[in-house]
């Protein structure tokens, strides 16, 4: 799935109707999984601006280990290429463990077959970097729909 980059003014204008209320009412938690410290800082800030509490880890194994010790998150932003354990393998292991968090792949890979292979690991959505307020609003809308079902 690819969304257009879109125009940008203020973050509040980018929050689709209902997204802000949904975040305020549900105390959603998120996990950012990325080996790039720049991306971890950026995605953490984006999520905080949208009202989510985020934790960050630097590879897929650390994400899986967190769930093994009982952590839960409503949303996981999963990078594709990481050392130790990549995003596809981490996603497969999390699904095999029965984790039903929303897992959103975030990758610099732009070819559809590369994104499809990542999706097949068990993602709910997959976006090309960079994340934007529009993409995050979309993710939160989908998260809210899943939460209500």
């Amino acid at each position, binding site marked *: 799935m690819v969304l257009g*980059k879109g*125009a*940008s*003014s*203020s*973050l509040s204008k980018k929050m689709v109707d209902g997204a802000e209320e949904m975040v305020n009412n549900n105390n959603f938690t998120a996990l950012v999984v990325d080996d*790039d*410290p*720049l*991306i971890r*800082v*950026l995605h953490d*800030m*984006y999520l905080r*601006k949208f009202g989510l509490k985020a934790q960050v880890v630097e590879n897929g194994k650390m994400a899986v280990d967190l769930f093994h010790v009982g952590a839960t998150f409503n949303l996981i932003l999963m990078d594709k*290429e990481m050392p130790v354990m990549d995003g596809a393998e981490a996603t497969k292991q999390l699904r095999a463990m029965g984790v039903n968090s929303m897992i959103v792949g975030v*990758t*610099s*890979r732009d070819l559809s077959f590369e994104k499809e292979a990542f999706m097949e690991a068990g993602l709910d959505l997959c976006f090309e*970097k*960079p*994340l*934007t*307020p529009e993409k995050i609003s979309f993710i939160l809308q989908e998260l809210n729909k899943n939460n209500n079902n």
Partner: protein
Amino acid sequence: MEVGQMQRRLVDYTKSLFMEGFLDGQFSQLQQLQDESNPDFVVEVVSLFFDDSEKLLNDLAIALDQPNVDFKRVDAHVHQLKGSSSSIGAQRVKNACIAFCNFCKQHNIESCLRCLQQVKQEFYLVKNKLETLFRLEQQIVGAGGSIPVMEMGF
């Protein structure tokens, strides 16, 4: 120079960076994330980009200098640089990475080496431009002024 002049100079300089393609709308998104509780957010993220990129460029030079070039490794490094440059809005670096990716797929060493030089050139250009931008901002704050908010209209 009085504060108003400095502010106008900053606005004009920032606009030029967008007009010349050094930066795109993603940089504006970064600026919008900065607030009173995170007043140095843009500088922090851009500094991470500088550090990341220098390391990746060094790794790429080493990878391309091997007798048997591991193009998978080269490709991974380029994609990482593409991801971080696009995330901070360094448009020309990102575009140079896109061209680089294509030559990686072709396993063309000579073209990859040319691309590496191009990426390096674009990186050091935007690094220089952003360091100038941050210096202008510091001068304004040092003189007791505030950084003007700019809508870049993307």
